[in-house]
C-alpha cells in the first residue's frame, strides 16, 4: 500500500488489537479501504468480524492500534463523531417513533431545521421506495420494510462511511435475495463507502468489491471476489468461500520436466493421475516429489457433456472416477467421488446420465488448480 493510497483511504485500520481480559479477539488487523468500495467482512461465527465492525463504529473501544476515517484519526472518538452510520442486524428501529422520525432522528439530534429535514427524509424515502410508509410505526412494517427504514436512517445523514452488521440475516431466504440486490443498487446509485459484515459467503461474493476473510481474529485474505475465489491464500479460505466448497484432496506432486505429475489416491485402486502444465507449486524443484493438498473447485470437475470442445490433454484432462453418491440439485447434479482422503464433489450437468456406483469419465480443469501445504494450509 503506497503513501498516496493511505492518504485517500476512506477507512484505514492499523495494527488494531482487541482483547477481552486474556482473550485476544482481534489480532493485528490492517485494512485499508478506498472511497466507494464495498468491503465485506466475512468469516465463520466467532471470527471477530462483528467485533471489528463494532470497533470501527466506536461502540466497542479497542485495545491498541488506530482507526482513521476519511483521513482523520477517529480511534478515540465517540460513535456519533466519526461521521459514520450503521445498519444493525435487528434493524434497531425506535419502536415508539414513526418511520419518518426514525429516518430523521440523526438530523433531529443535530438540530437540522424542519424543512431541510423533511426534504432529506423524502429524498431517502423516494430512493428506498418507502414514501407511503412514513407515518407508520416500525411494528406495522414487514421485515423487508424495516430493513429499508434502517438503511434510510443511515443514508439520510450522508456519512462518510456506512457500516452494515449482518443486515439480511433476519429475513427469509427469498427476501434476502431481493434486499441483496437492493443494497447493491443503492451502492451503485450513491457510490457510498460500505463496510458490510456477513457470515454468508454468497452475500460476500455478490456484494463486495473487496472481501476480507477472517478467522479466529486474524485477517486471512483481502482481495476481490475473483482473487478470493480463484486464488485463496490458504486451505481455510478455499474451504470457506464457495458453495459447495473447494475439494481439498491429499496427494503427491512430482516435477517432471515441463509438467507436474499429480497422484491422488483413490480407495478402490490405482491413484488418479493428472498432469499440471502450468507453473505448479513454486516450491517444488525439478525432480522433487512432495505430499500436498490439491485444491479443485467442483466446477473444475465436470462431465464430458459440458466440455463440447473436448479434451486438449493439457488444461482439460479426463479420468474415470467411481461415483459414490449422486445428488441432483436442479440446475446441476453433484456427484461425490472418494479422492485423496476426502469426499470430493464434482459438478455435473443436470441431465448427465449418471448413477451412483458407476465409473464415469470426469473432466478436470487444471487451469483452476490450487496447491496448499499440508501442515500450514498455506498456498504454495
Amino acid at each position, binding site marked *: 500500500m503506497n503513501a498516496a493510497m493511505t492518504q485517500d483511504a476512506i477507512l484505514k485500520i492499523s495494527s488494531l488489537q482487541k482483547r477481552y481480559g486474556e482473550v485476544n479477539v482481534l489480532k493485528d488487523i490492517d485494512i485499508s479501504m478506498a472511497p466507494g468500495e464495498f468491503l465485506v467482512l466475512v468469516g465463520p461465527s466467532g471470527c471477530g468480524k462483528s467485533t471489528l465492525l463494532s470497533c470501527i463504529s466506536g*461502540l466497542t*473501544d479497542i485495545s491498541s492500534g488506530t482507526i482513521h476515517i476519511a483521513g482523520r484519526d477517529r480511534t478515540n472518538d465517540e460513535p456519533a463523531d466519526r461521521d459514520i452510520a450503521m445498519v444493525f442486524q435487528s434493524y434497531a428501529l425506535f419502536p415508539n417513533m414513526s418511520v419518518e422520525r426514525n429516518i430523521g432522528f440523526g438530523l433531529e439530534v443535530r438540530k437540522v431545521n424542519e424543512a431541510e429535514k423533511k426534504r432529506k427524509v423524502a429524498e431517502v424515502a423516494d430512493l428506498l421506495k418507502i414514501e407511503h410508509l412514513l407515518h407508520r410505526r416500525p411494528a406495522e412494517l414487514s421485515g423487508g420494510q424495516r430493513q429499508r427504514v434502517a438503511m434510510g436512517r443511515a443514508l439520510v445523514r450522508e456519512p462518510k462511511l456506512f457500516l452494515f452488521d449482518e443486515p439480511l440475516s433476519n429475513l427469509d431466504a427469498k427476501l434476502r435475495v431481493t434486499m441483496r440486490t437492493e443494497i447493491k443498487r443503492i451502492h451503485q446509485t450513491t457510490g457510498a463507502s460500505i463496510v458490510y459484515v456477513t457470515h454468508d459467503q454468497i452475500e460476500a461474493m455478490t456484494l463486495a468489491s473487496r472481501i476480507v476473510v477472517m478467522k479466529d481474529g486474524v485477517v486471512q485474505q483481502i482481495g476481490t471476489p475473483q482473487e478470493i475465489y480463484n486464488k485463496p491464500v490458504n486451505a481455510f479460505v478455499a474451504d470457506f468461500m464457495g458453495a459447495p466448497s473447494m475439494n481439498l484432496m491429499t496427494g503427491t506432486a512430482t516435477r517432471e520436466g515441463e509438467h507436474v505429475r499429480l497422484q491422488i489416491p483413490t480407495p478402490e485402486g490405482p491413484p488418479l493421475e493428472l498432469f499440471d502444465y502450468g507453473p505448479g507449486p513454486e516450491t517444488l524443484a525439478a525432480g522433487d516429489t512432495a505430499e500436498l493438498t490439491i485444491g479443485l473447485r467442483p466446477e473444475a470437475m465436470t462431465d464430458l457433456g459440458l466440455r463440447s470442445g473436448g479434451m486438449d490433454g493439457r488444461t482439460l484432462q479426463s479420468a474415470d472416477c467411481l461415483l459414490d453418491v449422486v445428488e441432483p440439485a436442479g440446475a446441476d447434479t453433484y456427484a461425490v467421488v472418494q479422492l485423496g482422503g476426502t469426499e470430493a464433489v464434482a459438478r455435473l450437468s443436470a441431465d448427465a446420465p449418471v448413477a451412483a456406483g458407476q465409473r464415469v469419465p470426469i473432466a478436470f480443469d487444471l487451469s483452476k488448480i490450487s496447491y496448499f501445504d499440508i501442515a500450514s494450509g498455506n498456498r504454495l
Partner: protein
Amino acid sequence: MLGRRQKREKWILLAPALAVLALITLIPLANTLWLSFTDTRISALPEPVHFIGLENYVYALTDPDFQEALFRTLYFTIVSVGLEGVLGVAVAVLLNQEFRGRTLLRALIILPWAVPTIVNAVAWRLIYHPDYGALNSLLFQLGIISDYRSWIGDPATAMNMVILADVWKNFPLVAYVALAALQTVPEDLSKAAAIEGAGPWKRFCSITLPWIAGPLMVVMVLRTIEAFRVFDIIYVMTGGGPADSTKTASFYVYQEYFNYLRSGSGASYAVLVAGISAVLIVFYYSVTKRQTAGGAA
C-alpha cells in the same frame, strides 16, 4: 464498552441517587455509630457530650430487658415467617389447582397485602377487642370459648395474636412467589413420578418443593429481614404491652430514644439490632445470588 466517557457518565447518572442515599442513610448510620460511643441525651438545652467508649455496649449486652426484647423479636420473626411460609405454600398449591373461582381467589388474596400496615393493626385490634371484638363473639357463638377473653390484654396470648395479624397481611407475598415458582414446575416431572408410583405427598416433597425451594428461600429471607424490624403493628396493637410481652427490639430502641431520651445508649441498641439485620441481609444477598446463578426463577 466505551471506556473513559462511559465511566464518567456512569457516575453522573448515579450521583443524584448516591447523594440522596448518602444523606438519608449513610451519614445517619455513621452518626448513629458515633452516638453509640457517647452519653448523648436528647434535650432542649445543649449538654456536654462525653466519649465513653464501649460503655453503652457493655450495658446493652448485659441488659436482661434488651435480651428479652431480642428474644421476643426472634420469636415474632420465626413464628410469623414460618407460618407465612407454610400458609403461603399451601395457598399457592391450592391456587395452582384448576377450579371454578380460581381467578377470583387469586385476585382476592392481594387484598391483605394492599391493606396498609396500620389499618391492618387497627382492624385486628378491633377484632380482638375484649368486650366487643368479633373474635370473642364468633368463638363464643360457635361454642369454642365460654368466656370472652382479652386476647391482646393478656401477656400469654398477646404476642401470638399480633403474629396472627401479621401473618394475615403478609402471607400473600409468599403465596404469589410460590405460585409463580409452581407454575414453572414441569408437568412431565410430576407425571413421571406418578407413573413410578409416588403418591401426592411424596411427589410434593421430592419434586415440587425442591423445585420451588430457591425462590421460596429468597422471599422467606426477605420476609425475615422485614419481620425483624417489626414496629408499626406493635405500636398500634399493644404499645409493647401488656407487661412488655410484645416489646420488640425496634420498639425497645424507640422507647430508649423518644421516651427516655437516652440517644447514646439507644444508639448502641440500634447498632446491635442493625448488626443482626446486616447478617440477615448478607445472607439474603448470598441466597439471591445463588438463586440468580441457578436461574430457576
